[in-house]
């Protein structure tokens, strides 16, 4: 345990350092983009968050399959923790996106395939978290695992459907391709690594928390059983 703690401390420190480095890279090292100006720097938050949100949901998907297959509650904990952090990152994506879009596209939101798919993705995993709250104790893991699988499989089909819908009604805003210079690529890589470390740190802590909660519940059930037995003994 102490070994793990020490490791976590070091990990925390490295993450913090990478975060500072990323901030330096974003604000000092990366040049200001010519056509969009300084607003373009939001991109370094937006893209890593989007990448991590998808990655988190992918972990939920894999862990859900493994849970149904192996029936080990450890996979359920991982799936749940990852989904929660995925929702956090997806929320960041959905907030930073419009803040970038307003000065660049002059609208907060367009029903572009990627935007719409991200919004639906966010919805799916918010529902996933809600399902875990309302489902009964002994079905929670199974139900959420099934929903986790359905939700993830649904995403590519949704994207295809929305894209097809948009090709029939062409978009007003086009040509949003961003020309990236080398320092920008470096900055993006540094920011991605920093965010990835942050993600891992959050995930580890969240899983530890979930394990603790599980243990407390186990102990509580055990004590309640004991008390129940005592009462029965006294009664009979």
């Amino acid at each position, binding site marked *: 345990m102490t070994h793990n703690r020490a490791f976590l401390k070091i990990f925390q420190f490295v993450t913090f350092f990478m975060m500072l480095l990323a901030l330096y890279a974003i604000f000092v090292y990366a040049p200001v983009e010519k056509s969009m100006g*300084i*607003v373009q720097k*939001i991109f370094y*938050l937006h893209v890593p968050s989007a990448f991590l949100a998808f990655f988190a949901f992918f972990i939920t998907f894999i862990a859900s399959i493994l849970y149904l297959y192996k029936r080990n509650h450890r996979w359920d904990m991982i799936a749940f923790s990852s989904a929660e952090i995925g929702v956090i990152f997806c929320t960041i994506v959905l*907030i*930073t996106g419009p803040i970038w879009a307003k000065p660049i596209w002059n609208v907060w939101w367009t029903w572009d395939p990627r935007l719409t798919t991200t919004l639906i993705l966010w919805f799916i995993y918010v529902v996933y978290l809600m399902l875990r709250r309302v489902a009964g104790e002994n079905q929670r893991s199974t139900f959420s695992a099934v929903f986790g699988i359905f939700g993830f499989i649904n995403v590519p089909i949704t994207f295809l459907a929305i894209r097809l819908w948009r090709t029939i009604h062409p978009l007003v805003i086009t040509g949003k391709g961003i020309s990236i210079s080398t320092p920008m690529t470096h900055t993006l890589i540094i920011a991605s690594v920093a965010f990835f470390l942050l993600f891992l740190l959050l995930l580890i802590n969240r899983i530890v*928390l979930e394990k*603790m909660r599980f243990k*407390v519940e186990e102990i509580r059930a055990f004590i309640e059983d004991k008390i129940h037995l005592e009462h029965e003994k006294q009664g009979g």
Partner: protein
Amino acid sequence: MAGTLYLFAAFGITWLIIFIYIFSISRRQKTLERQIEKISKTLGDHS
């Protein structure tokens, strides 16, 4: 100048979300630790 405002709004909100989340995790962790302590104390009293 408006660009800077948007930039800081984006960074501010992102960090706010992450910090609130970290705070909520650590708070939940503390509550559980307190519960475990309480339980072990009660068990110690009984035996």
